């Protein structure tokens, strides 16, 4: 992947433009995360802009990065796509699954519940709690809602000894866990702020 810095254009607010990522690159979200972790926020934003397909996690991260950078122009362009993310509850729970216990996490879970989050997804988030009693309750609820998924979560997320992931649940697990893990690396608070800004969160 090659990133060219263009100094030819300056934005109206005086900030320099984002680095330009050349077309035809095979950049991925991983590249953007690596750039962020190296402190290259502008490069990470440029990568996210280059790989954005107008919907999905890439758009969400691009919008969160724009909010973080104070780029209102780009943020306003992206918010409608963030608001249309489907299923509507999923992003809230993926963020909640990463946050520590507290009002912010509780608010996201409450919103997701109102938006129709299925019982298994709520149980999964509880199963990841740092509180033992809540984690146990979540595991039990998940066992009764989706036994195959409960074993996969216990094995992969919680490393419960002698428990094996169930192949029947791998696809369901991956669909939720991939976004959650990316959000964890990107920064869950930034995505939570984006959700609040997008009008999808009550406190």
């Amino acid at each position, binding site marked *: 992947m090659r990133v060219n810095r263009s100094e030819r254009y300056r934005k109206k607010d005086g900030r320099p433009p984002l680095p330009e990522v050349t077309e035809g690159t095979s950049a991925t979200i991983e590249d953007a995360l690596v750039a962020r972790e190296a402190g290259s926020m502008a490069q990470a934003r440029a990568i996210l802009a280059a790989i954005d397909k107008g919907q999905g996690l890439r758009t969400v991260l691009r919008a969160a990065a724009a909010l973080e950078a104070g780029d209102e122009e780009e943020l306003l362009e992206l918010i409608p796509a963030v608001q249309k993310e489907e299923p509507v509850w999923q992003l809230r729970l993926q963020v909640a699954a990463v946050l520590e216990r507290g009002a912010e996490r509780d608010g996201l879970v409450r919103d997701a519940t109102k938006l129709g989050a299925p019982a298994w997804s709520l149980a999964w988030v509880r199963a990841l709690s740092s509180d033992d009693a809540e984690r146990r309750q979540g595991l*039990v609820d998940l066992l009764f809602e989706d036994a195959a998924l409960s074993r996969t979560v216990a094995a992969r997320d919680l490393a419960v000894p*002698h428990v094996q992931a169930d192949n029947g649940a791998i696809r369901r697990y991956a669909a939720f866990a991939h976004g959650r893990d990316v959000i964890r690396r990107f920064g869950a608070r930034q995505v939570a702020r984006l959700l609040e800004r997008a009008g999808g969160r009550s406190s």
Partner: protein
Amino acid sequence: MSRPVLSLYRLDRAKLAELSRRLRDLLARDDRAEFASLLGLGEELAQRVREARWSVDLMLRPDGDPLVAPLFASLRRVAKRAALEHVWTSESPSLEGRLRAYDVLRDDQEIAAGVDRLLDPTRLPWFLQRPGTTGGWLDDGQRSTLASAMEGVAPSLPDEVNAFVEAFGGMDGDAIVHDGL
């Protein structure tokens, strides 16, 4: 080694739901003494429960794990005693294959869908699912509808399927089929 045969049970859904509620509550509270009591465990197996971090950890382990296999077997026995009444057992190990693949049943979409639902183990509570076995359930209405549809094609069905249809249509209430209880 003998091949398993399907059995038919009348399900008392309210009693199964009550057992399920009780089990869920005990696991959530991690009341190991009551959990061991519910399963009717002897001292050695109860000790395994006491030594676990949480009782639910044991229920997350594979059914075939030697440490927990007797616990799953006990749980199935308790569920069977509480909520299932044996109605009939097939004499033919080939019944499941006939139900799943016999062309007369497959060619009728309504029958095929009903049979597939009846033999779908994911419709059973997790503690009645057992790897490598067949099981499933239909409520009274679904059972009655499927039985009537199968009776309609009875002249074209093999004997082992007709024996099943007779028992399946002749019972009342919700039905569970299983070859591992």
